């Protein structure tokens, strides 16, 4: 069944907003542009943008916009596809999903089921009772799918508006968010079937649902990178924005390689939503590969390989060696720099290893640790959200807890192994610490089978088997040190939600209720980007996200068996040392009497 919008109108439509003509467009980023190492080699690859165009034509009833290889007209909205690194799907970010309305939802979902989830790259979302379609009394039938790039799409059967239907925001305060959009962009406050408050922009609904799970993720870098509004006069809007105290993220400017002379600006809306504002006549940016050709940059589109059974292939031996030395937080004296120079990075690692608590000597380090031969990462800090690279404020309750906590037992006073921590005891580095780069044994081996990804971390030796298909999982009475890993693919990104944590390890004070989400994305043949989001409202006032990159080293690196507990002489020595101190003090006390 091919979807048709109610009327074959062009994608720019006249609205009712204060600022005159505007339209809404959604920009979906696609995987993924990578700087290759070979100079003077131009590889032009448009296959993904055109695949996306084809997909939205075939399944969503949109039409390719002539002369643009990377945009479709979906009736009332335009969707642009841009090559870029994607850090996962839209769900859970400030723009949770976009909605399309169809004439017969059951038939549409049957069509998807027949096509097969793997074949078309479509993922279907089932409701708790296993059904695909839910009839909301008084509203309409709804269903959810994910496009092959991880964009969450709601399909509704709303006879009043067919075709592109709505943009659905996640918001900590939906009423305030809608009011903000109305003040800045206009739109008509209205109620969808008397059930859902929203703003109506022409035929498109802007809806906002309460997000109760902390704060929604930043949209930038997700599949729905931003939403765009068109205005007749950007300068006029700029004046109004100043009144409303909305700051530009990027000032109005005609971007290089724009297809018209219209200006574009970016702002950051409520709930981490990146918003583009474009002037009438905006026709997008030329394909980035053409930018590459013109600026003589060497750009190559990277498409991660698939396993023989069709899942993104993350297999191989990776190491976190290059990332060792990246501080978690951006140092306060490096406010502006995006990346260090190679010399600065080398100096940082030098300081990090030689001045580590272990006090390793240079000679031992240089002859023993292979990674010293590899180039250190030039990343300034791991924290990428909040954007300033600093951890969010801790809560008042947490501060009180810390102040009231008994002092830590120093190692030479350890009464029992429990005083020395789970890492020294060779139990675990914890669900967060497990992945962190350390001074040595940074290997990460990944082996996949259909529906599963096994990740073996070298240090201490810990292996997680992550299911990539929905499954029951462990009951709530089976907590684990590393939790129970529930994974799924969002496009080429493996997203892992870690549940059932036993709360017996803590990362920087994280609590037993920490919600940990991990994202693994191959950004090149030898790079695996890893992001971890910690949402722990008992400790931090906002969720935060860290990122670093594992580097593939199949040819030289092999994980060794890190039989930690089996050779834990450190435990025996620490405890016997502590008892020797006890004895000495007891003797001294006796002599003094």
């Amino acid at each position, binding site marked *: 069944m091919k979807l048709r919008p109610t009327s074959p109108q062009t994608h720019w439509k006249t609205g009712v907003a204060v600022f005159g003509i505007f339209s809404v467009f959604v920009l979906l980023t696609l995987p993924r542009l990578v700087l290759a190492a070979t100079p003077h080699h131009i590889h032009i690859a448009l296959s993904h943008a055109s695949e996306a165009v084809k997909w939205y034509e075939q399944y969503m009833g949109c039409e390719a916009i002539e002369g643009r290889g990377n945009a479709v007209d979906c009736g009332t909205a335009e969707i642009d596809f841009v090559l870029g690194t994607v850090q996962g799907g839209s769900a859970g970010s400030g723009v949770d999903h976009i909605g399309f309305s169809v004439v017969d939802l059951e038939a549409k979902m049957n069509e998807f089921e027949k096509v097969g989830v793997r074949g078309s790259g479509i993922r279907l979302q089932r409701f708790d009772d296993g059904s695909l379609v839910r009839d909301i009394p008084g509203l309409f039938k709804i269903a959810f799918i994910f496009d092959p790039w991880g964009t969450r799409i709601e399909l509704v059967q709303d006879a009043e508006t067919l075709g592109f239907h709505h943009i659905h925001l996640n918001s900590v305060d939906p009423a305030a968010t809608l009011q903000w959009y109305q003040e800045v962009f206009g739109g008509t406050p209205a109620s969808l079937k008397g059930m859902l408050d929203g703003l109506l922009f022409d035929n498109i609904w802007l809806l906002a649902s309460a997000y109760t799970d902390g704060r929604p993720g930043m949209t930038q870098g997700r599949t729905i990178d931003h939403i765009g509004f068109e205005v007749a006069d950007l300068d006029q809007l700029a004046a109004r924005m100043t009144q409303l105290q909305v700051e530009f993220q990027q000032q109005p400017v005609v971007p290089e390689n724009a297809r018209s002379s219209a200006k574009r600006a970016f702002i950051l809306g409520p709930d981490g939503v990146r918003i583009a504002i474009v002037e009438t006549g905006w026709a997008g940016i030329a394909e980035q590969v053409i930018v590459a050709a013109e600026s003589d940059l060497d750009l190559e589109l990277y498409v991660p390989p698939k396993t023989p059974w069709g899942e993104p292939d993350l297999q191989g031996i990776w190491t976190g060696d290059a990332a060792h030395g990246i501080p978690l937080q951006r140092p306060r004296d490096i406010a502006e720099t995006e990346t260090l120079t190679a010399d600065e990075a080398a100096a940082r690692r030098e300081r990090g290893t030689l001045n580590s608590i272990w006090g390793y000597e240079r000679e031992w380090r240089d002859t023993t640790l292979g990674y010293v031969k590899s180039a250190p990462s030039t990343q300034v800090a791991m924290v990428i959200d909040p954007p300033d690279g600093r951890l969010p404020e801790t809560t008042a309750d947490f501060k009180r807890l810390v102040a009231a906590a008994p002092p830590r037992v120093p190692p030479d006073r350890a009464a029992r*192994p429990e005083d020395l921590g789970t890492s020294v005891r060779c139990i675990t580095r914890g669900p967060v610490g497990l992945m962190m780069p350390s001074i040595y044994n940074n290997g990460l081996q990944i082996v996949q089978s259909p529906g599963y990804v096994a990740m073996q971390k070298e240090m201490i030796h810990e292996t997680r*088997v992550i299911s990539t298909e929905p499954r029951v999982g462990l009951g709530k009475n089976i907590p684990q040190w590393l939790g129970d890993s529930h994974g799924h693919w969002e496009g080429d990104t493996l997203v892992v939600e870690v549940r059932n944590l036993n709360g017996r390890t803590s990362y920087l004070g994280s609590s037993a209720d920490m919600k940990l989400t991990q994202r693994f994305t191959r950004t090149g043949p030898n790079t695996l980007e890893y992001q971890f989001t910690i949402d722990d409202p008992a400790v931090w006032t906002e969720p935060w996200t860290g990122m670093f990159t594992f580097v593939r080293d199949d040819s030289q690196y092999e994980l060794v068996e890190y039989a930690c507990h089996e050779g834990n002489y450190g435990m025996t020595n620490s405890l016997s040392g502590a008892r020797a101190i006890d004895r000495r003090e007891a003797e001294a006390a006796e002599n003094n009497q």
Partner: protein
Amino acid sequence: MVSRLQAAAITSILSVVTTLFAASSAMAQTSSSYSAPRAWDGNPDINGIWQAIGTAHWNIQDHAASAGLPELGALGATPPGQGIVVGDEIPYQAWALEKRQENWNNRQSTDPEAKCYLPGVPRATYLPYPFQILQGTNKIMIVYGYAAANRTIHMDKENPESAPLDTWMGRSHGYWDGDTLVVDAQGFNGEAWFDRAGNFASSSLKVTERYTPIGPNAMMYEATLEDPTVFTRPWQISMPLYRRLEANAQVIEYKCVEFSEEMLYGHLYKKDSE
């Protein structure tokens, strides 16, 4: 085409079989008429969660019930069971038989399992817990819940590389012999035991394992154990492995370190500490 590795392996297996026939306790290798579902590469699909059933983890040989620590009552007793050793005899050299007896006598404190040490091969296979096999594109990984143990079976190395260092779990190279996955495991550190009865080998142990599907939910596990330092001849074990059929079956983390600490370090604890 048979690779040199395969040829060598087949030759050595044949020689083992011949030896066993000569020793009159022959066991034909399983060559099932069952045709297993195929994995992506046309080989049998043995992905999934498997577990041994029986009492081999107590004692790989035939054994009657016997007492355990009195304070545990009947819970500490060894249940009776039929062994998995083909012919039931382990051909220990004389010194090794004495050593086995010593292991048995001191097993409550010296069994590596009591210390939560890595289980080694083949013991990992028949511990009474599930394990998961993942058939990757060039490695097969086996993930065990006990002690976070795992094995990587290199399917992509034409000639087995010698282990860079001796380890508890050894180094494994595999290939398919028809519908049988054959794994050559060597490079052990000689610290692991085979069971709670003190059966053991040295660092010169070589284990040749054969995994053969015999039905949708079962496969035969056969292993030939060679160790000229400890045994007078190669010997074999054989047992089925069963697929765990529970809809929610999964390998559960069994990090047992903390349960071994008091036994290992208790004498170094500060008195009256909790």
